[in-house]
């Protein structure tokens, strides 16, 4: 009896995990087959012949997936959604007028608690535009004439965008030529810094145009926009901005120590740094003559090797402030080189408080403010060191 029950269970579990909108008709065949098995019980060899009913072929499944939603259907769905939203608000005791999507999500999670791990399998109630994929309406009118003048190219949205962008490029060039002819053209670069935005990615552009693009198409479009940018267009900024998305600038998250003042009124800043197992603390004074003291000893005597002293001087050298600050540091642990690295990090962090935000960003990009994460890798069994294997002997 075990064999028929197992196949039954398999059929059931297949039904449950389908998800989405799968209509019942192709699967009724599976139910019928399972029911037939349960009824007749023994004689599984005879029953195997009955499994052929209602099995959905690949063709049917594909047709089910490519359902086209008419405009009327979507409108009806939107109306039903709005009415349902008001009912839900009444049920929860909230005001139907100010019931937002977040409230809907909370209400559904409360009314239909689900223990499923897959978030997309839980019950949802969202606006139909987010559930049904965006589709293109019929592209031509009653007389058969297409609406868009680039319909016969196949990719009308993409090519019309290219046409528009190229038109703007020509306009800008013409305007600049006129200005140059009159002699009013100034070479000043008015381009604002675009460091806080990035170009749209291909998926975002496809979503915007509701059309499939190839990689070459996308690259061509970005190249055209870059070319438009190099022409210092002032008026086409909004057109270009439509295709840029903002990106959080990393340096804003940098912690800057506040400047402190001692008894004589001298400004100083304290900060810590680490490298391997060396820990350092540095105090950088606002004005000075470039003296550096490490653990009470002058750095020339503490670090006999030039390389270590260069590491200490690097933050000052980068900001062109070599002889302008006095530094006092304490360091412990590690070796010669790691102590130098730790002091370098501490000094760079301390210098941030005396310096503009732009210079802080430059320091961050130069790598002065990043702690070096490298530590000694552990030795593994079966090997001589972390990476070194034992000598391989052929025999």
């Amino acid at each position: 009896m075990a064999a028929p029950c197992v196949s039954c269970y398999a059929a059931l579990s297949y039904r449950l995990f389908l998800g989405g909108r799968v209509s019942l008709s192709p699967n009724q065949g599976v139910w019928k087959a399972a029911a037939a098995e349960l009824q007749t019980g023994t004689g599984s060899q005879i029953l195997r012949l009955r499994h052929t009913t209602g099995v959905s072929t690949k063709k049917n499944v594909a047709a089910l997936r490519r359902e086209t939603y008419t405009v009327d259907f979507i409108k009806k769905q939107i109306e039903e959604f709005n009415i349902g939203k008001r009912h839900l608000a009444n049920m929860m005791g909230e005001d139907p007028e100010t019931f937002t999507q977040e409230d809907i999500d909370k209400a559904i999670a409360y009314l239909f608690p689900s223990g499923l791990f897959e978030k997309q399998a839980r019950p949802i109630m969202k606006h139909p535009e987010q559930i049904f994929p965006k589709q293109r309406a019929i592209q031509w009118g009653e007389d058969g004439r297409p609406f868009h003048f680039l319909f016969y190219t196949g990719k009308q949205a993409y090519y019309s965008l290219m046409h528009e962008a190229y038109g703007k490029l020509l306009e800008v060039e013409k305007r600049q030529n006129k200005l140059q002819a009159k002699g009013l053209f100034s070479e000043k670069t008015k381009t604002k810094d675009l460091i806080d935005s990035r170009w749209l990615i291909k998926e975002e552009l496809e979503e915007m145009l509701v059309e499939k693009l190839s990689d070459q198409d996308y690259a061509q479009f970005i190249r055209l926009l870059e070319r438009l940018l190099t022409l210092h267009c002032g008026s086409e900024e909004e057109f270009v901005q439509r295709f840029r998305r903002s990106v959080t600038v990393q340096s804003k998250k940098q912690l800057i120590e506040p400047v402190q003042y001692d008894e004589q009124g001298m400004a100083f800043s304290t900060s810590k740094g680490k490298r391997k197992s060396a820990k350092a603390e540095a105090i950088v004074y606002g004005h000075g003559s470039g003296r550096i003291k490490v653990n009470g000893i002058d750095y020339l005597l503490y670090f006999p090797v030039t390389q270590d002293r260069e590491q200490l001087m690097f933050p000052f050298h980068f900001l062109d402030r070599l002889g302008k600050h006095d530094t006092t540091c304490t360091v412990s642990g590690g070796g010669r080189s790691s102590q130098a690295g730790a002091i370098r990090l501490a000094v760079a962090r301390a210098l941030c408080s005396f310096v503009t935000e732009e210079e802080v960003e430059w320091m961050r990009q130069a790598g002065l403010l990043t702690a070096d994460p490298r530590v000694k890798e552990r030795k593994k069994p079966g090997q001589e060191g972390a990476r070194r294997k034992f000598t391989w002997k052929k025999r």
Partner: protein
Amino acid sequence: MLLGRAAGCARPAGGAWPRALRPPLLGTATPGRARPGGRTLAGAAIPAVGEPEGSTDVSHNILSEPLKHSDFFNVKELFSVRSLFNARVHLGHKAGCRHRFMEPYIFGSRLGQDIIDLEQTAVHLQLALNFTAHVAYRKGIILFVSRNRQFSHLIETTAHDCGEYAHTRYFKGGLLTNSSLLLGSMVRLPDLIIFLHTLNNVFEPHVAVRDAAKMHIPTVGIVDTNCNPCLITYPIPGNDDSPPAVHLFCRLFRTTINRAKQKRRQIEALYELQGKEGPGARGQGPAASPSLKA
């Protein structure tokens, strides 16, 4: 299969051939039951859109009236041999690039450069513009095709200004022959294709020339001295590389199409007025509601 276009046969000046001998021109809609004139892939005619019964004669007149004149839209006045010369339409490529079938249209060659015979060009241009005007008058779909990237933007703008369609991009293989897959089922194909450049970027004949001939779509094309005029219904021998020449041709096509559409609107308005006045004047007076609508 093309009717009666032997390569290189010299065509007499327009109108010189008697009607019986004139080769049947592809795509001329026969006068009769008025339809929007489109053909679908299966060859079935598109059903007429909402026509009341009494207007059959009216629409019959609207469509047959222009066919009784040889130059109903007066396209001759839009250009002259002198204006073609000023736009450098007569300049061809070097003699080494010459296509064998273009020899009848070439006037001669100067310093190795072929010169196109503008008298013949004028004749062909008049025929082509006349045909375009008739197609536009009958509300046909006109598609401008070119693969020259220098003038792509200009041609697309021209097409947009006329209210017609353009395709100056990469031409996908089965666009005309396999349109139900690429463009959608039950799509209406163009009724006329105008080639401003017959060759593509590798100096081979554009695929659309052959495909239009396969799909029985008439073509108008500007053929330069290195092009093959064989499969084009209304070739216009002329220069397709100089900016003034291409600008001139774009302007000519735009003017003819706009003129033809305007004429159609005028004539429809005229017949509508006549239809209102006709039955209204008989009995009840000018306040009667119009019963006949074209």
